[in-house]
């Protein structure tokens, strides 16, 4: 017999509503989405049962494609098929030492680099948002409704700009984001909860494009990150590239077209993956000019050409141990994360360094997403057994301000536990100084030029005083996502200036709002984005042509006609940066119409000039 539950008077039975919570591992090469189902973290596969989504977005003739659908076009349409976008997050063109590696049409914009595609110029935030949207849709289909909360992982060594860019992408994709979680920490949660581990562990996370090392202490339900280090531009991609370079050299190939380069990179990656299981891998390819490539890459050569990449991961490991004030022998276990840790030479180097075989009893591709799902489930408020654990993470890179002489004054040191707030007082340099330029930087180097510039702002309205008399308190606050807020205040007068460190890489709140609006307008039909891009090109062409004609032959038209043309041009400009391609087309049409007679008269004039045998440019003075 079933027993009915009756609540106490005055105490409404709290409906235990299960929230749809997910964890997303947004990787350089592959991404995954996971959730907690019946107390167990599981990866959500696609209809064909594939758990991974290749982190590839294609801006195709018929809209946006992601994952395997986009992957199918990577060699045939390399400039519109975007891979490894994570490497560009929060980065300017000048930050990319390896820009030539990518076959993209880069657009150098202030802050973050952008990519010209068939669907217009795209920022890495927008490309990542397209990936996240696909993952969100997969989760919604599987969970049967909209996602209530998501945890998205980032490399532990991501700086503020890269983190903010990731958060913006999640927002743009319509994901209610609960937390940015560091990838090695996510892996530690999945591993630690699974194995009820206690002690100090190292997580060695070599992904497609990033490397992280985190040292954590696991004790009585507390995951405490002691130190983290890494390289946010080192990963499996670099191993592929070494093989790619070896192919070019061994086959003595001339400079390649983007399609051929992409083809050989794909072959390089396949060879790398084969070599984890075999002693030799054959590389067979036919290039677009009919040249055939037929090479055999042995494990010995592969290990040799990638040796310094493996060695490059060990310096951050040493630095992290030093910051944690530990020796390699103090580490109880080393957890391997990331597909690139499947390479035998990587496993060997890690085993040798720590003096113990690494732990490989979990899938290095899935463990981060699983940990993120567990954290997402907890943050969303779903109660599970054994969920009374606590996570204490750190900031990976020091945060500071520029002081006189182009030097950095650190305010928050790397590996400080977050959240954290620290204040420091500064003073004026000149008598009567009424404003102070505050330049926020991140990094470990002494000179400002060697650190990453995060933001600049000004504190104005300081009352004039002698140099050194003003007391300006600058407060840095880093939240649990690892994101920074800075406030400055003159202590005597209370003059204040505050900034959330965001616009430095080129996206302000307004721009994000606009992108969001744009994405909603175009979500139903990406063809519209393309139509808009085309209309914009047309609008720019006709505007430039009309202005040039007015400048050279303006005397051919009367005041009234001129006013009509000017009005049409003004309308064109108004719609140029809007999102309505139909209105823009109409504006282009009205400029065409207004300039019809003018164009005819100009034609007549040039015809008569040609008849009198004079060159047009001779008449222009």
């Amino acid at each position: 017999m079933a027993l009915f539950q009756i609540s106490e008077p005055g105490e409404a039975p709290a409906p235990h509503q299960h929230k749809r919570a997910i964890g997303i591992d947004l990787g350089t090469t592959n991404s995954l989405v996971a959730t907690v189902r019946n107390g167990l973290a599981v990866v959500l596969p696609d209809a064909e049962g594939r758990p991974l989504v290749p982190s590839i977005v294609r801006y195709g003739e018929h809209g946006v494609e992601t994952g395997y659908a986009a992957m199918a076009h990577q060699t045939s349409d390399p400039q519109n098929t975007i891979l490894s976008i994570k490497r560009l997050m929060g980065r300017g063109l000048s930050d990319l030492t390896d820009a030539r590696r990518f076959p993209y049409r880069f657009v150098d914009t202030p802050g973050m680099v952008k990519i010209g595609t068939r669907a217009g110029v795209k920022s890495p935030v927008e490309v990542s948002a397209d990936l996240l949207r696909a993952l969100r849709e997969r989760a919604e289909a599987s969970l049967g409704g909209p996602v209530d909360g998501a945890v998205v992982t980032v490399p532990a060594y991501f700086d503020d700009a890269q983190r903010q860019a990731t958060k913006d992408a999640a927002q743009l994709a319509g994901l209610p984001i609960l937390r940015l979680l560091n990838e090695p920490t996510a892996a530690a949660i999945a591993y630690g909860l699974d194995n009820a581990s206690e002690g100090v562990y190292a997580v060695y996370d070599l992904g497609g494009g990033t490397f992280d090392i985190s040292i954590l202490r696991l004790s009585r339900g507390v995951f405490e990150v002691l130190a983290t280090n890494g390289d946010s531009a080192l990963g499996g991609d670099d191993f592929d590239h070494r093989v790619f370079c070896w192919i070019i050299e061994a086959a003595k190939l001339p400079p390649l077209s983007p399609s051929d380069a992409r083809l050989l990179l794909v072959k390089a990656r396949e060879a790398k993956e084969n070599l984890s299981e075999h002693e030799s891998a054959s590389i067979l390819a036919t290039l677009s000019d009919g040249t055939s490539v037929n090479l055999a890459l042995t494990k010995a050569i592969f290990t040799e050409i990638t040796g310094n990449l493996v060695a490059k991961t060990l310096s951050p490991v040493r630095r992290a141990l030093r910051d944690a004030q530990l020796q390699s022998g103090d580490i109880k276990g080393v957890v391997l994360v990331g597909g690139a840790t499947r390479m035998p030479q990587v496993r060997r180097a890690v085993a040798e360094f720590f003096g113990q075989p690494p732990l490989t009893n979990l899938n290095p591709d899935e463990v981060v997403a699983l940990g993120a799902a567990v954290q997402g489930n907890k943050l969303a408020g779903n109660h599970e057994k054994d969920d009374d654990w606590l996570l204490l993470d750190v900031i990976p890179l020091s945060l500071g301000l520029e002081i006189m002489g182009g030097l950095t004054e650190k305010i928050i040191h790397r590996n400080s536990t977050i959240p954290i707030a620290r204040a420091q007082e500064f003073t004026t340099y000149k008598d009567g100084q009424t404003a102070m330029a505050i330049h926020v930087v991140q990094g470990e180097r002494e000179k400002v030029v060697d650190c990453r510039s995060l933001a600049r702002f000004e504190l104005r309205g300081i009352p004039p005083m002698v140099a050194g008399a003003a007391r300006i308190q600058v407060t840095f606050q880093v939240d649990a996502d690892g994101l920074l807020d800075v406030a400055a205040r003159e202590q005597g007068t209370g003059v204040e200036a505050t900034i959330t460190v965001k616009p430095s890489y080129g996206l302000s709140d307004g721009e994000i709002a606009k992108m969001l609006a744009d994405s909603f307008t175009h979500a139903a039909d990406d063809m519209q984005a393309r139509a808009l891009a085309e209309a914009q090109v047309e609008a720019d062409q006709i505007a430039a042509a009309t202005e040039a004609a007015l400048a050279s032959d303006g005397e051919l038209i009367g005041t009234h006609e001129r006013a009509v043309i000017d009005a049409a041009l003004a309308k064109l400009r108004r719609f140029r940066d809007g999102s309505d391609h139909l209105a823009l087309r109409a504006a282009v049409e009205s400029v065409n119409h207004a300039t019809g007679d003018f164009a005819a008269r100009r034609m007549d004039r040039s015809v008569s000039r040609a008849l009198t045998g004079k060159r047009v440019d001779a008449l222009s003075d």
Partner: protein
Amino acid sequence: MIDFSRNHFELLGLAPAFRIDVTELDRAYRQLQTEVHPDRFAGGSDTERRLALQSSAHVNEAYRALKNPVRRAQYLLRLHGIDAVSETDTALPLEFLERQLERRELAADAQAAGDVPALSALLEDARAEGRALEDLLADLLDGEQAFAMARIQVRELTFLAKLTGDLDGMLAASES
């Protein structure tokens, strides 16, 4: 949330002293973070989340100030109105300074010569001096309550901590 007016010792439930039970400090810290950490309020209102952020940051600051002996000594003096590391008063006993300068010179020579054992010995030496200073401070601060007098030792300990950090860095650079 937490009471921001309480000092770090009160917040973490410890008697104000230089010698503390570090296990108890760790336990109290984790207990407090379990209560106030932003992860507990991820689905809360803006106010709740802001308060959690401020409280958690404050608890981290308190823990940081007490966990490390150098910072703990500085904080203890500050509670008694003494700024041991003021920028205007940096005097140190001459023989202490000479000893550290000599140590630094020897370390620089050892590093230039790639003499790792010599560097290790110098580091161990400096650490031993630091431990002896901590014992002395425990007597001065917890025994005699001679806070003003302890200013010099706190400053020496601060100086030594910086030096051992530098030597450790030189050693790491020489070893790799």
